């Protein structure tokens, strides 16, 4: 499997490390319910199909990336810098 890093170009997946689902957003700690915190820490969807996930380009540009991957075929549909995703999320855009 290869991942096309938006900064470095296409690279072997051995250069990356995998974190997991890019969807969870940490609830506001002091105000979060126990259920919301439990959900954030432990519960993950396991879709058969498109999955947005965080990868780290450890052996390259050292950037976090949001990779949209089909879990059935490993086909990669999109790779975006996680920084851009986080910034657009902060601006209230759908990300």
């Amino acid at each position, binding site marked *: 499997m290869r991942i096309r890093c938006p900064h470095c170009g296409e690279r072997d997946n051995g250069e990356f490390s995998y974190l997991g689902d890019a969807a969870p957003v940490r609830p506001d700690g002091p105000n979060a319910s126990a259920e919301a915190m439990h959900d954030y820490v432990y519960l993950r969807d396991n879709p058969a199909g498109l999955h947005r996930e965080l990868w780290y380009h450890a052996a*390259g540009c050292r*950037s976090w990336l949001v990779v949209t991957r089909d879990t059935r075929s490993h086909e990669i549909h999109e790779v975006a810098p996680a920084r851009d995703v986080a910034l657009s999320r902060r601006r209230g855009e759908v990300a």
Partner: protein
Amino acid sequence: MSDVAMVGAEKLESIWKPRSAWAGYARAGRHGRTGGEAGITLTLRDEVGLATLIVADGKEAALDRALEASHGWSLPEAGRAALAGEEGLIWSGPGQWLAIAGTRRRLDGLADAVTGLASVTDQSDGRALVRVSGPCAREMLSKGVAIDLHPRAFRAGSAAVTSIAHIGAQLWQRDDAPTYDLAVARSFAGSFWSWLSHAAAEFGYGVEHGPGR
């Protein structure tokens, strides 16, 4: 009182000799396959000045202007090196570059020149540098990197951060010969040399020292 404290300043001068990053690993001379022209030349480069630059948020254009004014350099885009002779900047990641100069002294004043625009960290003793040239340079490096070194994908002025033999490495191509420069963390010099010397052996390789400090 220790022996060091008792010797005069003149003597101290001779004690503190710079030690090559490759000392104890690389030996000058011809190695590997014997007979015929060496396919690979490895030039050990201990004299160079190196520093990392990390740009402050939103200051890239201002940093570019400041570096142009102070050193005559321009910021290369992703995957590129902007070098004139032995000095310039090599892209290392988003908002990050490696500054290189023929001597460390040439980097004096770099931090002052970019105050408020970027953070600068001296890496002159932090990396081990080797120049790889010779008719088999591309063929040999291709055995170690998982990036495409074919001229249609990687050419003079191209730069990459990747790994070789599980060791983080930064490389850039200097000319179409092709000549490459390779930098690894200094503490990995021994392990990296183990890969390099074995990879070069089948082509026959010569080891030489670059200009002294």
